[in-house]
Structures are given as structure tokens and as C-alpha cells.
């Protein structure tokens, strides 16, 4: 049996729920989980003050209710499953290294910052800075996968060093800014200044995109690895047409203010 938490009281200010991860609650019964101390603004409260808890910690947690003001869920998660049946707040899966987080609704800013492994699936939209580095850090996402089926906002994959981010809808500005390596796929439209300051890595987009003047056009070609990647993404529920699977892509190199070893691939029907 898994742990089931349903919210009975909506927090006035964000709850900081970094203790609520499938690994951190392993072996705890509902009473022990209810008694866990978490932060509510500047007050210490217990999980039970906001959630009705059922079941036992056996590697999976289901959360229900309006969790838009619940932050830091699944922080440092190493294994197990965390399923959020609704919206969720900021800083989901901070630095996680394994396991899977699924959000049926929308997510706030900072999905999977500095994560090293595992998978986060957002069925709705996400806000800014998914898969990014925290301010000041040398590197963002180090590995793992973030799948956002809806739209995402600015600075997706800021400073990412490895891993995969897929946005089913549109992305905001500065996608892949300061990227060190890794792959970002945007199936919708991308905002401006994509790949600014990128050293290595790939950004793939299905729609015409405005290039920074520090990016240079290389060629039009069909990268074989895209077919493999897109086939895998189809199994994750992303809608990718055969034309895109087999089509041609413009390749742009950049950012020449940095190493110039990154690429932006733009689908060209």
C-alpha cells in the first residue's frame, strides 16, 4: 500500500515540504507522516495540520488537493514514485537523483533544478527555470529527464550540463541559456535569445526561431539521432508527426561568444 495524502486545509503561505518524498517516508505509518515537522512561512507545523494521511510509506506517495502552495516536494529524491493529482508549487524535485515524479496538473517555477537523475513528468504547464541551475551555481541539471507536456516559460535548462528536457508546447525566452551540454526539445514555439551563452549541447525546435547574431548557419541535414529520440518520445505520449521524424533540420552553431560548440536544430518542412 502506498501513502495517500489529501489536503484538508489550504496553506496561507507556501508549505516547505522537502520531507515528503517516497524515500524519506519509507517505513513510516500514517501517524508518523502526519507528525513530520515542516515549515509554513516562518512557523513550524506538522504535515497533519494540512493533510489527511492514509496508508504506509512503501515507496510511493499520492498527493491530492490544491498543492499550488506546496514547495520543494520530492527534494533530493533517490528512488520511488511521487504522484501529484493536481497542481504543484515551486522547486519540485530539487536535486533529485532517481525515481519518478508525475504531476497531473501544472507546476510552478523551478521544476527539477540541479537534478542529477530520475524523471519528472508534468502533464500541464510549467513556469520558469525548469532544469536550471540555482543562481550562482556553475551547473544546472546534471542528468535525468524532464517532460513537460504543456507550455513552459523562460530560462528552461539554464546552465544544464546533461540530461533531457522536452517541452510539448511553447517555451519562453532564453531557452538553454548558458547551457554546458544536454538536450532540450521544444515541440511548440521558442521565444527569443535561445541558447544565449551556450557552450555545448543541443536545442531542437519544430518552428522557425529567431537566432542570436552570435549563432551561425551551418547546413540543412537529417540528424539520425533525432529519429531515435523522437521514437522514444512518442512512447512518452508526445505527438510527433512522421514528417518531423524523417524531415530535414537547419543546423546553427553557437554561441560564438562562448565555445561555439552548441547547436540549435530547426525543423524545415
Amino acid at each position, binding site marked *: 500500500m502506498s501513502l495517500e495524502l489529501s489536503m484538508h486545509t489550504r496553506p496561507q503561505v507556501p508549505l516547505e515540504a522537502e520531507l515528503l518524498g517516497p524515500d524519506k517516508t519509507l517505513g513510516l505509518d500514517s501517524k508518523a507522516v502526519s507528525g513530520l515537522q515542516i515549515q509554513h512561512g516562518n512557523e513550524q507545523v506538522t504535515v497533519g495540520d494540512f493533510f489527511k494521511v492514509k496508508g504506509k510509506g512503501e515507496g510511493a506517495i499520492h498527493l491530492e488537493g490544491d498543492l499550488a502552495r506546496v514547495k520543494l516536494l520530492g527534494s533530493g529524491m533517490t528512488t520511488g514514485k511521487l504522484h501529484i493529482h493536481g497542481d504543484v508549487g515551486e522547486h519540485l524535485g530539487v536535486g533529485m537523483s532517481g525515481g519518478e515524479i508525475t504531476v497531473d496538473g501544472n507546476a510552478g517555477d523551478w521544476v527539477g533544478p540541479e537534478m542529477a537523475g530520475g524523471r519528472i513528468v508534468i502533464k500541464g504547464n510549467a513556469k520558469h527555470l525548469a532544469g536550471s541551475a*540555482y*543562481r*550562482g*551555481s*556553475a551547473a544546472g541539471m546534471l542528468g535525468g529527464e524532464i517532460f513537460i507536456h504543456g507550455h513552459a516559460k523562460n530560462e528552461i535548462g539554464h546552465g544544464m550540463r546533461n540530461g533531457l528536457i522536452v517541452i510539448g508546447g511553447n517555451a519562453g525566452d532564453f531557452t538553454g541559456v548558458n547551457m554546458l551540454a544536454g538536450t532540450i526539445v521544444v515541440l511548440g514555439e521558442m521565444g527569443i535569445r535561445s541558447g544565449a551563452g551556450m557552450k555545448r549541447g543541443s536545442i531542437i525546435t519544430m518552428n522557425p526561431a529567431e537566432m542570436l547574431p552570435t549563432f551561425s548557419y551551418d547546413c540543412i541535414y537529417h540528424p539520425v539521432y533525432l529519429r531515435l529520440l523522437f521514437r522514444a518520445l512518442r512512447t512518452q505520449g508526445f505527438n510527433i508527426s512522421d514528417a518531423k521524424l524523417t524531415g530535414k533540420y537547419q543546423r546553427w552553431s553557437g554561441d560564438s561568444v562562448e565555445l561555439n560548440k552548441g547547436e540549435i536544430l530547426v525543423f524545415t518542412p
Partner: protein
Amino acid sequence: MASTLRFVNGRVYDPANNIDGEVRDICIKNGKVVDSLPDDTPSIDASGMVIMPGGVDIHSHIAGPKVNLARKLQPEDHRHDPHPGTNFTRSGSGGTVPSTFATGYRYATLGYTTVMEAAVTPIGALHTVEELHDTPVIDKGFYLLLGNNIYLQTLLKEGRHDEFKQAVGWWINKTKAYTAKLVNPGGDEPWKGKRNSNVTDIDEKSDLLNISPRDVIEAFVKTVNELGLPHPPHIHCNNLGHSGNYKTTLETMKTAGDLRMHLAHIQFHSYGGEPGKNPDSKAVEIAEYVNTHPNITCDVGQVMFGKSTIMTADAPLAYLLRGFKKGKWVNADAECESGCGILPFSYQEHVFTHALQWAIGLELFLLSEDPWRIMLSTDHPNGGSFMSYPKLIRLLMDKEFRKEEIGKVNQKAIAKTNLPSLDREYTLNEIAIISRAAPARALNLKHKGQLGPGADADITIYDDQEDKEMMFNAPRYVIKSGEMVIEDHEFRNDYYGKILHSAPEFDEEISEDIRPFFEKYYSIEFENYGVADHYLHEHEIIPRVSS
């Protein structure tokens, strides 16, 4: 709060009063140490404990614009090290450049009660004073960067030596500083004006004003001694970090003649070898000079392995280092009377240069014969955080531990030094000298660094432990100006210390000479410059000394 306190049965180390581990009572009344208290005064039993004056750090970087820039540059450093508040103290953030509150509390948890900020631009003095007000527990002061000041150097060039003296007096008064600090004297200005044209020799005349570092150093040694500032000019020599720089350091010390001079973080200035090639150790030569010249004091600037933050008014140096590191850095103060560069750094055991720097620092400590003239510092946060002092103390006091640590570092570097052959172990009395009595004496803080009647009741009481790192990491009691700030390792009280500064006499007329220069070149109003009296809260003017 109790205005009296008495500790009985503790072993007292008070080298300024020739007390070396004697068991005796320490009595405190109204913030001062007193001879005795009435018999019915309650006593705290300090048996098994070691009592020392509160620590005095003569060279650290804890407040002001460059420190704050270093904080802004490294949010990651803070994020990984939150500093929670207690019922008595405020919260903050740590890392190598802690927030103001965390800086004060963390110094206090090591038993330090006085700290000097070692490099403040005149234009940054007001910011520094405001930050120092928010740095709890410790008393504090700052040294004023005057070694790359165009106005002052122009006076030197024109041979107007009396005006030079008056102007230095004006600047120290105007900013509420403690003494003059020279950083890469005469080198920053030409570097700012012409990319990478730093001076490399103490006698090299800059093409900007046609004066040499030696001209600047000589003028300041003479002037600061004439003005009777409580601490001599505090000098960061030219060529910091460069191979072969020990010659510059020796020449700098010779420039003092027999006048007082303090050499900052001398470890960074004790390198042999050819410029641009690998360095070796010249600790023997430097220690020999210091040993035989009682007018010279210095602090070591020990390198400790791990994360550090380079922050210096030596902008050309930071520019050079940023080329190796390729990470983030900041250059600042290009537009005012100094320079400034900041970059995150990390000293690693396996790196030749880092291991050599570490070993040279320890050599200097172990080779110096007079602990009253060589003081404990890591040039926080340049060589490492002040939080590593307890480990440094253990390295000095425990030769077996030192041997183990030597075994862990780059052996090619160790082979360039005499460190393995040095068997000396510092005694508790010597540690009390290098970390409190000597810095207090070098600063002419007569009421600090000692526990005689009338001394400030800044006192640290440690549990006597075999492991000196453990011991110095966690004093059981810390008393600041007679208030029990830490009791049984916990904060029991908050306390805000005072600003210590000098007020040398000078001829007011000099301001009419400075004003036109100021109005021509500065970006703020003459009247808004410096630190007006009403900005000072608790403060103390340290009287002039005759040399």
C-alpha cells in the same frame, strides 16, 4: 545582566602579563577585568579550563563594498550554509563570506572579540561603517586604502611632503579609519589606465606619475609614524603571488629603516623562483629578516585547503588569477582611489602551488623566533575562512598531526620546503600570543589581548582538550565587555561591539587643497564624502602613539 562575574580555578594564559598557565581567578566588573571582587560574589568553576583574552584578528575581510560584492557573486556559497538564528541572535548565511550577522557570531563562537577589516576604499568607508554596525559581538576597525591615490601621489611627485602628511591625516579622520593600508602600492593606477601594465619592481617608476612603489612606501612609513597612528602602515607588497617575489618583500621591509611597519599575509610574499615559472620557498630568508628586525610585524595569511574567496584591492592579481580559473569574477573600484578584484577559489592538496603555499605559511610560523611579531591569519577569506583557525592551531601545536597532513599533500611541493624537518610545537602560551596578545600590541590596543586589571573583559574560556582543533573550535564561555555572550557553548546574549578608529591631528587647511581636485574628478559631493560623526554609534578613538 550581571555586572560582575568571577571565574575560579581556570588556567590562565595572559602572555602580556607574563602569566603562563597559572591557576588563578579572573574577576570582571562593569565590563573590565578587576583585581578582586567581594567574597560573596558568585563564582563559576573553571577547573579543567583554559582562560585567554578574547581573540584579536589583525587582518581579515569582513565588511564593505568588496566583501558585499563577494557575497553577491556567490549565492551558492550561502545557500549551502544557512546560519540559523537563536532566541538571542539573528540569522544569516555562511560560506566563505558570511553575512554581517553570521560573521560576528561565527567569530564569537571561535572566541574572537576584536577583528580588523584590512582594506577599505575611502569612498566605501561609509558602507563599511554601516556593515560593521551590523556585525555583532566583536569590536572592529578598518584600514584605509591609500596606496594608489592619485591626489596623494601627485603631492609626492611634486615633493610636497608636509601637504602629503596633512592629507593622510585628513583622510584617516574623514573616514574614521584605523591606519593606512597599502596594496600593491603604485601598481593599480597604471594598471587601470593601461591594460595589464602593473609595476613589477619596487623601484620601477610608473609612467603615470613617475614615482615608484618604494617612493610611496617610504612616504607612508614616515607619515604614519609621524602622525602617531596606533598601527603602522599595513602593507600588501607588490608582486603578491609571483615567483621570486621574496626580493620585493625584503626590499619593502628595508624601506622601513627602523620605523614600524606591518607586512600583511607575508606567506603570499615569500616565494623564490623565476617570474612566470614554478615557485619555491623563501620562508627561511623572510623569517630571518623578520627575526632580526624588531620594527617589523607581520601576519602569515596561511592557506588552508578547501573553498576560499580571493578578494583584493590588488586588481591586477585578480585579473591574472581569473585567467587560470576561467570562472566568474568581478573587477570593481576602477573608478575610485583603489582597485578591486574578486573570484571564488579553492585550494587543493594535490596542486603543487597550493601545497607549497600551505607549507610556506607553516614554515614561517615555525621559523619565526618572536611570536610577538608574527600573527595568526588566513587573510580571511583569501587563504581560507577564519573558521579554519582551529585546524591551523592544531597544525602548529601538534607535530604528529602536522606530519600526517604533510603526507596528504603534493610531495614535490613539500620537497621545495624545510617543513618536514621543523619539529617545533607551539605552546598554549605562544598561541595566546599570536592570536590575541601580539595583534593587540601591534594595534596598540592597550586594553585588549591581556587580562590585567583595567583590561577590557573580552575573555574566552576553553575546555582543555588533547585535540586542539576541537578545543579552539568550541569555547565554553565567551565574554565580551563583561557580558556573557556564550555560556556552555550556547548564545545567551546578543552584543554589539564598537568601532575602533584613529583621529590624528592635521592641518584643516589641507581640505581646501583637496577640494578642487575632488570637485574636478569625483562623482560625489565633497560634503557627502567620508563618514560624518553622526554615523558612528558606539566608537572609541585610539590615542596617538609616539614611535
